């Protein structure tokens, strides 16, 4: 509850703030603000550049890029599906090779090759070179004897 004394005190006007302080204080505050701003800008400069480049590339044709991505997804899906269909092909080949007709043809080809070339066991065994050929004088004597 305010009494007369309190009201009397409240009526006393306080001193006004000196007018010259406004520019001084705001000037000091403005000087302090850009320092922080510059530091922040410098620290995230490359991030900002990347973001700007990506925005420049993607933002104007967002629908186009989305469509292109969808096309790629379809292409990859078709590719995977096609690879699944062609995968059994080697198995089929193996099945054909093991069929009786193929085996018979292979056997005939082998016989024909044997007649033309001869049996491998008919060839004389190739002479094994000894690990140590011996002295040069002995090699010369062997050549003269032959």
């Amino acid at each position, binding site marked *: 509850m305010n009494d*007369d*004394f*309190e009201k*009397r*005190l*409240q009526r*006393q*006007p*306080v*001193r*006004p*703030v000196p007018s010259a*302080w*406004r520019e*001084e*204080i*705001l000037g*000091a*505050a*403005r000087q*302090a*603000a850009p*320092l*922080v701003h510059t530091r922040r800008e410098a620290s995230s400069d490359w991030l900002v550049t990347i973001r700007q480049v990506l925005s420049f590339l993607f933002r104007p044709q967002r629908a186009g890029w989305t469509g292109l991505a969808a096309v790629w997804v379809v292409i990859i899906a078709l590719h995977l599906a096609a690879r699944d269909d062609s995968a059994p092909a080697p198995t089929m080949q193996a099945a054909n090779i093991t069929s009786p007709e193929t085996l018979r043809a292979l056997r005939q080809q082998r016989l024909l090759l044997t007649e033309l070339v001869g049996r491998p066991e008919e060839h004389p065994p190739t002479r094994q070179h000894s690990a140590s050929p011996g002295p040069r004088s002995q090699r010369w004597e062997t050549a003269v004897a032959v």
Partner: protein
Amino acid sequence: MAADLERLYDEHAQALFAFLLNFTRDEADTRDVLQDVFVKLARQSELLAAVRDERGFLLRLAHNAAIDLMRRRGTRDRKHEQFGTEQLPAFARTEDPDEAAFRTELAAALGELPADQRAVVHLKLWEGLTFEQIAAALEIPLNTAASRYRYGLDKLRDRLRPLYDEIK
């Protein structure tokens, strides 16, 4: 941000100045603390983002900055013990000699109060804040704000009663 700082200054600097001048009793300290407050606002523009009561928030910033100044003084040269004893014109000038005498005595009586009582008395009488607002601004309990005001006002009344009765 610069425009926002100017708006903040135009709207609140007068109240902050009067509070700080009454609290520190020193014009140079008042200026330093006021500048500290605005430099802090410039550096941390997000400070006021979620604030509903700008005046209360700025008074709290100013009060904390003044307390920091007092502590620095305390560790440096103990000058803070002289806070409040200086005679300075805390109130506007007037041509009326009775009013001028009363204002001079009032300024002196305020200077004799402890700083914590002086802060509450100022915010209650010249800022018109409620005890809840004062408690929030000074970060003290509500009952503490009310009791400090009562003690401070009683001291002022005792000190100024003779002059007040004379010129009433």
